[in-house]
């Protein structure tokens, strides 16, 4: 476990709700849930085939102080950002964002599950997008397939080759991008400086040591 985890745990003592309220994006809404369950029933992935803890249950667990169970959970990583829960919530709780927020926080303090595929996707995507300011789809795909090593990557790539081939044939996957071609912003430097500053400010605001 990371230092950050211990640091935060110590900071908030037993008040996990407060920790989420201050640390997770839109976490201050968790207390507003009235346990109607419309979010849990609205989640498409909750029926294919289901989460360990749907949103409303996660909220109750947060209020019950179940820090480990929540932070270690795979559940919030199942969010597909479809916003069904968000628009149906009778308390207008921004559930989609809270799911993202809890996941992000768990990751930030080193509690995200090992090899969480959606986390890996998120990392890969953001790093890919911010490297040049724009997404390089081929490199993105590559890094996704090869996240578990070369052999696994080849296996996956083989399995997906019809998908990729189809796109290539249709002119929608530019292999040149794999070797550094593709689109990029002009002011890459400015973007990087901007992001560094943003990150710094966010850490400051949330009382997280950089």
């Amino acid at each position, binding site marked *: 476990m990371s230092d950050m985890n211990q640091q935060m745990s110590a900071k908030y003592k037993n008040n996990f709700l407060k920790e989420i309220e201050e640390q997770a994006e839109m976490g201050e809404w968790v207390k507003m849930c009235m346990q109607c369950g419309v979010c849990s029933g609205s989640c498409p992935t909750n029926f*294919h085939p289901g989460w360990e803890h749907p949103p409303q249950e996660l909220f109750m667990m947060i209020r019950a102080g179940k820090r480990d169970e929540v932070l270690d959970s795979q559940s919030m990583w199942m969010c597909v950002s479809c*916003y069904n829960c968000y628009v149906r919530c009778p308390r207008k709780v921004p559930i989609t964002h809270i799911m993202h927020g809890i996941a992000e926080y768990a990751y930030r303090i080193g509690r995200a599950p090992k090899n969480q*595929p959606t986390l890996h996707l998120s990392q890969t*995507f*953001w790093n890919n997008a911010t490297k040049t300011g724009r997404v390089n789809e081929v490199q993105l795909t590559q890094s*996704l397939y090869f996240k578990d090593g070369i052999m696994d990557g080849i296996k996956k790539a083989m399995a997906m080759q019809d998908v990729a081939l*189809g796109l290539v044939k249709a002119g929608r996957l530019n292999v040149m991008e794999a070797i550094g071609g593709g689109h990029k912003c002009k002011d890459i430097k400015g973007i990087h400086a901007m*992001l560094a500053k943003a990150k710094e400010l*966010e850490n400051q605001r949330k009382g997280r040591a950089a």
Partner: protein
Amino acid sequence: MAKKEYAFYPGCSSQKGASASNYLVSVDSMCKTLDIKMTEIPDWNCCGASISYAEAGELPRLAMNARNFALSEQHLPGQDIVATCAACWLGSRESKERLEHNNTLMDDTNKALKEAGLNLKVIPEVRHMVEVLIEDLGYAELASHVKKPLEGMKIAGYVGCQTNRPFGIQGESFENPMYLDKLIESVGAQATKFDQKVTCCGGALAFSEPDKAQAQIKDIIEAAYDSGAEMLVTPCPLCQANTEVYQGQINKKYGTKFQLPVLYYSQLMVLAYGGSAKDAGLNGQVIRARRLEEFAGK
């Protein structure tokens, strides 16, 4: 002078050679017909999409979107930003809303923007291409340009999530939005009664949780067939890609025989407006839209 002018935010997937490049091709042709002038925001950057939440955190994502706003206001002052991609539109709109309602975030964002030599005061309106079509032009206007109605074609309008929730198109319900059906009908085709029109395609989780996503995609394609549709049409690049490219995988896994072309609304419009297969970007289909190709050839 063009009738309408907008600041265009094409987004990463619409770039040349990218997964939605055919979308951009058709949008270009469509706008030409409709006399809509779209000027690309100079040096625009990625919106971050929903999926970047874990790595990016809140403020960096806001900063990315704010940069686009600042550039747009700087170079194309007073123009609405128009996005063709659902994720770009949503990411930008969400950022706009949050920045406008939270001064702390706005201040911090401007501090970050300063590092890129920019400053944000006014955030332009952020709109989806479909909004422009419906609200600024209207169905009647759209229909008036039809030269070759897509008569007899049965099409399922697949709205998906992010053009629909949480903002949606004004006047439409989250559960049964009709705008896509109306667009289909305004070009002379028939919109089928399709009960999975707002089911999620799995979004980015098509990569990370393929089994879950493909189970959902299967439901969508199945329902489209059940509705009698011969093709699916969508306003979202990710919906388009997910529902199109995984059909083969799903066939293998579930023993289905899916081969349903998936198109963008703009492609239909270009064809109905008399454009060629190339104008419509039909060469960009992974599952070829044979009927449309024939139609375009006539």
